[in-house]
C-alpha cells in the first residue's frame, strides 16, 4: 500500500462526501422540474446539513448509548462503502480487502444498527419503521447478492476493481443475463434507498413512512449525520450500478497520467446527472405501493436476478 494509493483512496472518499449531497440536490431539482414546481437550489442539502449541525440535540429521556452511537455507525459504514466502490478509479487499496459480499455485509450492518436505534426509544412509529426496514432488507439483500453472483459468473471475481477492469476489457453487454441483473439492481436500489414505489422520501404521514419513521427521534448533529449517510447510501448504490453496468470512464490501475482523473471525474458527473434524471422519471411515473405489496415487488427483483443467473448458465451450457 503506497502513500500515493492511500492518497487516491482518500481523494475518492472526499469526493463521495462532497458529491453525495449534491446528487440528492440534483434529484430534488429534477423532480421539481418534472412536477412543474420551481426547484430548490442545488446546494439545498448542504444548507440543511449546516443548519442541523448548528442546532442543539434534543435526546429522548430513555435513549441509550446505542442510540447516540448509531448515526456515527451509519455514516462510517457509508464512508467505508464509498471507499470500496470504484466510482472514480479502480486502484483502491481498500477495495482489495473488502469485496462485494463484504460490502453487502457493511450495508446490513448499517441497516441493523438503524433498526435497533429506532427500537431504542420505544415509540410505536420507530418500531414500525424498524420492522418494515428489516422486511425490505431481508428481501432486497438476497436480490443484490444474486446480482453480484451473476457478475462473478461473468468475470470471475467478487472484488470491485477486478469486476470493473474486466468489464472494460471485455464489454460483454450482449450477455442477456446482464439485462436481468440490471433491472433487478434498479429495483433493489429503489427499495433500499427509501424511494417510491417502496417508500416516499417526502411524505408527511407517519403511517406510510419507513426510513423517516426510524429517524423521527433524531435531531441536530445526529440527524445531520444520518441524512448525510442516507444521501451517501444513494450515491453508493448508484456508483455500484455504474461499476457493474456502465463502467466506462472509470480510471483503471494501468492508466497513468494527469489527464486520467479529470476525464473519469467528468464521466462520473455525466453519469450521475443521467442517473438522477432516470431515477426521478421512474419515481414520478410510479405510485407508491402499499407496504403489503412491497414483498411482491422485491420478490420480483429477486426472481429476476436468479433468472439472470439461470439464463447465463443455460446459455453457457448450450
Amino acid at each position, binding site marked *: 500500500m503506497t502513500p500515493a494509493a492511500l492518497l487516491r483512496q482518500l481523494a475518492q472518499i472526499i469526493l463521495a462526501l462532497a458529491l453525495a449531497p449534491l446528487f440528492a440536490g440534483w434529484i430534488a431539482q429534477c423532480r421539481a422540474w418534472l412536477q412543474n414546481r420551481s426547484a430548490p437550489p442545488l446546494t439545498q442539502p448542504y444548507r440543511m446539513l449546516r443548519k442541523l*449541525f*448548528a442546532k*442543539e*440535540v434534543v*435526546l*429522548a*429521556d*430513555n435513549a*441509550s448509548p*446505542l442510540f447516540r452511537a448509531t448515526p*456515527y455507525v451509519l*455514516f462510517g459504514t457509508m*464512508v*467505508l462503502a464509498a471507499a470500496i466502490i470504484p466510482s472514480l478509479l479502480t486502484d483502491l487499496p481498500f477495495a*482489495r*480487502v*473488502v*469485496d462485494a*459480499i*463484504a460490502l453487502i455485509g*457493511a450495508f*446490513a450492518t448499517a*441497516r*441493523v444498527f438503524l*433498526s*435497533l436505534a429506532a*427500537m*431504542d*426509544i*420505544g*415509540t*410505536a412509529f420507530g*418500531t414500525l419503521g424498524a*420492522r*418494515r426496514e*428489516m422486511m425490505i*432488507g*431481508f*428481501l432486497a*439483500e*438476497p436480490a443484490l*447478492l*444474486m446480482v453480484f*453472483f451473476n457478475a*462473478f*459468473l461473468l468475470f470471475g*471475481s467478487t*472484488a470491485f476493481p477486478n469486476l470493473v477492469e474486466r468489464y472494460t476489457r471485455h464489454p460483454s453487454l450482449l450477455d442477456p443475463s446482464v439485462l436481468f441483473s440490471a433491472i433487478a439492481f434498479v429495483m433493489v436500489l429503489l427499495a433500499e434507498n427509501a424511494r417510491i414505489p417502496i417508500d416516499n422520501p417526502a411524505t408527511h404521514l*407517519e403511517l406510510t413512512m419507513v426510513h423517516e419513521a426510524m429517524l423521527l*427521534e433524531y435531531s441536530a*448533529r445526529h440527524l445531520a*449525520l444520518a441524512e448525510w449517510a442516507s444521501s451517501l447510501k444513494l450515491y453508493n448504490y448508484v456508483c455500484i450500478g455504474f461499476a457493474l453496468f456502465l463502467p466506462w470512464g472509470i480510471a483503471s490501475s494501468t492508466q497513468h497520467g494527469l489527464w486520467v482523473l479529470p476525464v473519469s471525474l467528468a464521466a462520473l458527473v455525466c453519469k450521475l446527472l443521467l442517473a438522477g434524471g432516470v431515477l426521478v422519471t421512474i419515481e414520478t411515473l410510479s405510485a407508491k405501493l402499499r407496504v403489503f405489496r412491497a*414483498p411482491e415487488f422485491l420478490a420480483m427483483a*429477486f426472481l429476476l436476478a*436468479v433468472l439472470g*443467473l*439461470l439464463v447465463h448458465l*443455460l446459455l*453457457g*451450457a448450450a
Partner: protein
Amino acid sequence: MNTANALATAATTTLPLRMALTWVLAILALGVAGLARPNSIRLVARTLFAVGALACLGLAVLALGFLLRSQTPEVLILPLGLPDLPFHVRLDTLSAFFLLVLGLVGAGISSFSAGYFRAGEGTAPGLMGLHYHVFLASMGLVMLANDAYLFMVAWETMALSSFFLVVTQHRRGEIRKAGFLYLLMAHLGALCILFCFGLLHGGHWQFTFDAMRAARLAPAAASWTFVLALAGFGAKAGLVPFHVWLPEAHPAAPSPVSAMMSGLMLSTAAYGMVRVTFDLLQGRFWQWGLAMLAVGLFSALYGAIFAGVQTDMKRLLAYSSIENMGIVFSALGLALLFASSNMPLLAALALTAALIHTLNHALFKSLLFLATGSVMHATRQRSLGKLGGLIGRMPWVAGLALLGTLAIAGLPPLNGFVSEWLLLQSFLFTASLPHAFINMLVPLGAAVLALTLALAAYVMVKFYGIVFLGQPRESSLLEAHDANWVERAGLGWLGLACLLIGIMPQLALRLAAPVTAGLVGASVSLDGAFGWIAPVAAQQAAYNGLVLFVGILAIFGVTFLLVRLLAHGRLRRAAAWDCGYRWQTPRMQDSAEGFGQPIRHIFGPFFRMRRHLPAPEDPAPRYEVVIEDRLWRLFYAPLGRAVDWLADAVGVLQSGRLSIYLLFSFATLLLLLVFVL
C-alpha cells in the same frame, strides 16, 4: 482420497491423547466430587464449576497445541470395556478441532454457571453438577472414540445426561413433556446411528473405525449407510423433519444447559456427520452431497422463518440453532459435492466454512443463551411480550449480547460474517462442477442461503430490540439487576472470542487447515498478510477482517472528532415525541407478535395459524395468534396414530389370563418344531 493419511501409523508418543483423556476424566471427577455435599451451592456451583472452566481451558489449550504442532493421529486401546471388546480412542486433527470448540466454549459456559446457579431451583445442585459434568465429559469422549462401541456408549451417555438436565425443573408438566419428546427423538436418532455402524463394518464384524475405513462398501450399502447417518446425526442437529424436539427441549433446560445443548451438543452432530461421511465413508458420491445440501438449506430456511414468529426468547434462539445447523450441513453437503467431483481445493473451502461456522455458532449461540439466563434471573420473564428496555438496567449483559447479536446476524467485522463469506465464496465456484444439472440447481441453493442469512438478521434484530431496547413493558423490569462479575467473565470470554475470530479470520483458518488436509487432501491458502484470507486466489476474492476493523475504527474516530471539533456539543434531554397522543404506555410498543407479522404474511404457507381478532366494540378485547408447525400434523400425528394403532392391535393378545399365555407358548413351540423338523 485420504486413505494414506487415515491409515497412517500411530505416532510413537501418545502424550496429548493421554492428557486429553486425563482432562475428560478430571471433568468427570468434578461431577462426582459434587456428590460429597450435594446441597451446598458454594461447593458445587461456585467452586466445582469454576474449576471445571479451568479444565475446559486445559482441554482447549491441548487441542490447540495438537492442531498447530504434531497433527499426527494417535491411538490407544483402553483397559476398559467388555472382555475381548476394549475401548479404542484416537486423537486426530478432526477430533482435536472439535475438542477445541468443546474446551473453548465449555470454559465460558462453566465460568458463567459458577455465578449462575442458585439454591432451590429444581434438582439438588450436587446432582445437577454431576449431570452437567458427565454431559461435558461424554461429549469429549464422543470426539475421542475410535470404535463404534465406545462412540455409542458416549453418545447415549450424552443423550441421557442432557435429558436429566432438561428436566431439572421436573415439577412442571410441560418440561416433563419436552423431556420425553427429547428422549424419544434422541433414541430414534441413536438407533439410526447404530444401524449405520452396523452397515459400516462391511461384513467383517470389526467395529473399530480403522476397520470401517478399510472396508470398501458396495455402492448401495454405502448409500444406505449415508442415509442412516444423515437421519441419525440430522436428528441430533435438529434438521427438518427431525427438528421438533429442539425448540421444546432446549428452552426447557436451565440457560447454561441450553447453551451447552445448542452450542456444543449440536456440534457433536456435525462432528459425527463429518467423521462418518468424510472419514469412514470417504465421501464417494455426489448424490450424497446434493441430498445433504438440500436438507441443510431447507432446514436453515425453515429455522429462520420459524424463529421470526416466536414470542419466547429461548424458543427463538432454539429455532435459530436449527437455522445455523442447516447452514453447517449445507456447507458439508457442498464440500461432499466438490470432494466427490475431485475438486479438493473447493471441497476444503466448503469444509472450512462448515467447521468455522460450527465454531462460531457454538460461541455466539452460547453467549446469547447465557444472556437469556441472566435476563431470566433478573426479571423472572422469558416471554418477549413482557421484557424490554433492559439496556439501561443491565448494561453489561446488554452490551455483550449486542456483540453476540451482531455476530449471529453475520455482520462484519465479527465472526459470523467470516464463515458466511467463506460459504458464499464456495457457492460461487459451483459453476465449475462437471454436472450441468447441478450447476443449474446450486445457484438456487445460493439464493435460498442468501435469503436465510438476511432473515437471520431480521430475527436477531427482533430478539435484541424487544428484549433490551425500548421501554420496559412491565413495571417489575425497573428493578432488574445486572449479572454478577463471574457471569460477566463467562459472557465476556465468549464475546471476546467472537470478536477475535472476526478480525483475525486467519487464526480460525489455520486451525481448520490441518483438518481439511486430512479429510479432503487440501486446505485453503494461508499465505498473505496478517488477518488476510484469500481462499482460492487473491484476484478472485479476498477479505481482511483486521483492515476492515481498523478502517471502521479510524472512520468512526475521525468522524467523531470532527463532529466534536466543528459542531458544538450541546445536548438536552426531553420526553420522546408522542405524536400528539399523551396517554401512551409502554404496552403500546410493537410486540414480538407485531414484529413477526411480515414473516407471517410473507411465509404464510409454512405455518398452521389460528387467529382470534377482537371485535371493535369488545369491552375486553383479546388478540390471540397460535402458530404451529405443519409437520406436526403432516408427519408426526399420523406416525403417533400408527404407533397407537399398532399398540392396540398387539394389545388384543393381552387378555390377562395365564392359560391363554401358556397356550401362546405352546403354539409357538409347535410352530418352531414344524420349522425345525
